[in-house]
């Protein structure tokens, strides 16, 4: 009886490990390409970055307006000194429009707005750069 139990446990263990190998092999054959958005800070100071998804997005006096707006990146500080001046973000699948809000940390005054950039036709990858003159470019 005890021997049959051990055989049963071994059998289940073998089946489980086979399933694991199978899944790994399937993933390797069809690797998923992740979305990738890189933010580059070439501004004069460290900046705060907050990112929203949705459509018809706009920043208006502390509020983000639009349709189905959803915060996909909470505020994070990005240095203005390389190599720490980049932020890699993985937007959720299906996101086509994003609003990137740039701010500065004013201590007791809080996080204060600098500028924003809307990425309207996002196709899964790209680099958004905040230049020293405050303009943004997306490639």
């Amino acid at each position, binding site marked *: 009886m005890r021997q049959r139990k051990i055989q049963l446990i071994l059998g289940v263990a073998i089946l489980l490990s086979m399933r694991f190998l199978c899944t790994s092999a399937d993933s390797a054959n069809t690797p998923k390409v992740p979305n990738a958005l890189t933010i580059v800070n070439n*501004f*004069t*100071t460290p900046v*705060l970055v*907050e990112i*929203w998804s949705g459509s*018809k997005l706009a*920043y*208006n*006096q*502390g*509020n*983000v*307006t*639009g*349709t189905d*707006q959803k*915060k996909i990146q*909470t*505020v994070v500080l990005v240095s203005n000194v390389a190599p720490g001046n980049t932020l890699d973000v993985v937007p959720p699948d299906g996101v086509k429009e994003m609003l990137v*809000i*740039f*701010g*500065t940390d004013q201590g007791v*005054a*809080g*996080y*204060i*707005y*600098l*500028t924003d950039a809307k990425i309207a036709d996002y196709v899964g990858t790209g680099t958004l750069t905040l230049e*020293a*003159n*405050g*303009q943004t470019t997306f490639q």
Partner: protein
Amino acid sequence: MFFCLFAASCTATNEPAGEPSAIKPPPLLLPDKQVIRVFAPVNLSTQAGIINFDFDSTMAPFSALMIFKTNPPTVSPGKDYLSDISSCWGGATNMTTHPWNNFQVVLDAAVSGVYVCDPLSPIAPLSNTLVRYTGSMTAGTYYWVILGYEADYRLTYSSPLYKFTR
């Protein structure tokens, strides 16, 4: 959907709702005034060459762009106007004959919309004729603000004070 049974509620709920950002708008230079939004040059940026001062002053019958060098203007506690504009470098306003389209003033090398400050005239502190060009904007720290006035010249609107480096 529920509210669309009633036409009035339906209209209200169809308007885009705002969600709060953790990044707040910059405080106005004159905090008790209504907001004039400004866009460029971005606060704390570095500027070279031609500068486009971008804003929206459509709500104000009269407006003024004021640019200050080195020192920001002074606002006395409890007051609602600028009490010291001695560091004024230049600006423009539709209270005189300066061109004004409510959206942009260009500081250019040849055809500029920015005029010299007149320190002897605190009531109308911008020259009618003496133009500022990029060539006279030396290296340093500058501040700029847009102020808005009612038709009876009451100061009613203010933008934040933005800083840039040349």
